[in-house]
């Protein structure tokens, strides 16, 4: 019993980061209807930046979040301004191929810059744990979960309470309407993409303390984000959040019930089910 409880807790902790990643992806899709195939690769660049800051300047990844989030924000905004704007009205397939190209570029420039060896940030507290009853909590993962939650909350408040956030939501709901009331759509899109990317950059920093990564981790992370967003509900921020936790838990339980290296199969099977029977996702509304 404790084993399953432990698995659920671990899953939830990891799920927090998945939620953050998925929030970014969902925001981008919700506002621009663009599927960011380069999501995971942007995250990996965030991870490399975090790693570099740690190894050369000794900056703790939880502190370098600000830097990585901003850096990846800029990257995302740049990609949006330079490339995505041109294909906003193109068929979906074209958008996917474009972002796939960006993903290939990001993954392989990382490969050229950093080499193929796995990297990992070894903080002093990397192995610390604490106990709550019979359940052991991994310190880095718990910290990650806390920060991810805080960021998700911050994003939510931003979108709900600030003018800029409202503009973004308006543009997501009704692009033409937003244009009609004078919204600078280009600015909104760039901002949204940037924030989405920033989320994933922050997520990268948050994962480095416990996830070894290589340039090719990007594609796997992209898939994980897609899984979460589809399962939770495309375009629904709450869905992304809940989906992240759900996927985290199902992966964790999968690792316990099956072989650890097969844990992703649980998520993929879940994905297939959702695609077939409820393609709008658990919390998604109409497309």
């Amino acid at each position: 019993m404790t084993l399953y409880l432990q698995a659920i807790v671990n899953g939830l902790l990891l799920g927090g980061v998945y939620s953050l990643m998925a929030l970014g992806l969902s925001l981008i899709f919700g506002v621009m209807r663009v599927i960011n195939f380069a999501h995971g690769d942007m995250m990996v660049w965030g991870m490399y930046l975090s790693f570099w800051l740690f190894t050369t300047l000794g900056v703790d990844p939880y502190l370098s979040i600000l830097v990585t989030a901003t850096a990846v924000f800029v990257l995302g905004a740049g990609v949006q301004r330079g490339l995505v704007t041109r294909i906003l009205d193109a068929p979906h397939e074209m958008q996917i191929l474009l972002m796939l190209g960006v993903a290939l570029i990001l993954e392989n420039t990382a490969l050229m810059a950093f080499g193929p060896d796995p990297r990992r940030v070894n903080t002093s507290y990397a192995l610390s744990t604490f106990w709550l009853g019979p359940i052991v909590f991994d310190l880095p993962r718990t910290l990650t979960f806390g920060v991810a939650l805080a960021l998700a909350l911050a994003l939510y408040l931003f979108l709900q309470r600030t003018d800029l956030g409202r503009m973004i939501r308006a543009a997501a709901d009704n692009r033409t309407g937003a244009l009609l009331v004078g919204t600078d759509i280009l600015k909104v899109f760039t901002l949204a993409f940037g924030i989405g990317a920033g989320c994933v950059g922050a997520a990268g920093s948050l994962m480095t303390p416990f996830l070894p990564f290589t340039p090719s981790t990007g594609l796997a992370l992209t898939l994980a984000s897609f899984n979460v967003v589809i399962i939770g509900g495309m375009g629904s921020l709450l869905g992304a959040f809940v989906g992240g936790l759900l996927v985290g838990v199902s992966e964790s339980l999968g690792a316990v019930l099956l072989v650890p290296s097969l844990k992703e199969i649980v998520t993929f099977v879940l994905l297939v089910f959702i695609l077939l029977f409820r393609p709008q996702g658990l919390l998604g509304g109409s497309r």
Partner: protein
Amino acid sequence: MMRRIGPGLLVGAILVVLPFWIPSNWQNLLISTFYYAYLGQAWNLLGGYAGQLSLGHAAFFGVGSYTAAVLAIHLGLSPWIGMFAGAVLAVLLSQGIGYLGFRFGLRGFYFILLTVAAAEICRLVALHLPILGGYTGLFIQFRPDPWRFQFKGKIPYYFVSLGFLAAASAIVWLVSRSKMGAYLVAIREDEDASEGLGVDTLRYKMLAYALSAALTALGGTFYAYYQFYLQPNTVLSLNHSVDIMIRPIVGGSGTILGPILGSFLLELMGEFSRTMFAASTAGLSVAMYGVLLVVVVLFLPRGVYPTLAGWMRRKSGAAR
């Protein structure tokens, strides 16, 4: 008639004579080009003509290569026969995925994701099946014997890969001229309108998927007996699916010359980056593929070949 066949015959003659005159690394290059062009043609049937983008063709490739290899290793079956067993299994897999996808109305991004999920599931399963060698992979002993699909020297491989490419191109050409071809293209352009005009869209998409999967699987066997090593993370990976589809997309999906041109282009680019920037090129050529993909999507959305053909048509029109 001669005007149309003439250039083709000339190219054919050159290709037949060529391998005897070029160094080994050029032979390698051409084999690789033909082989990827072949896979591109197979993908093209589903992705270009029928308009159903698949990012999971590595699954069929894997099924083909592993089936032929396992049957050869454990039953001593010649890969020339085993590859058809692989093709049959690939067809079954494609019908399974296709039924799930098409019957439930998955289109565009959702269908792409389904294909990715299917391929990933295959990869994860393969990593855990001992008979497939699991994580260590499957080594194929090199014993040159044409019956075992293994040849001494590169030249036989050259002709086999060229033969595969010619056959696939012929098949795609025949399909494109047939009722099936017209229907596939209609489905691509507007699936609902096609339904209304009597096209059984489910049936034709499934057919295209089956043919595409079968051909891809056969190509997998060639790979197995050219590289002599199969590993799920190479053979069944998303990266590999991208490799398969990028050539027809760049060259021009929905055309016969597209995958061939795309394959030549990418191979040349890869070779260029390898020779110019020897040292840290792990990744440069693929990064350039990414750039090429971006450029094509932004400026040449129909692919290099259709755009070029359009230019030439306009030029000759203006000159008249």
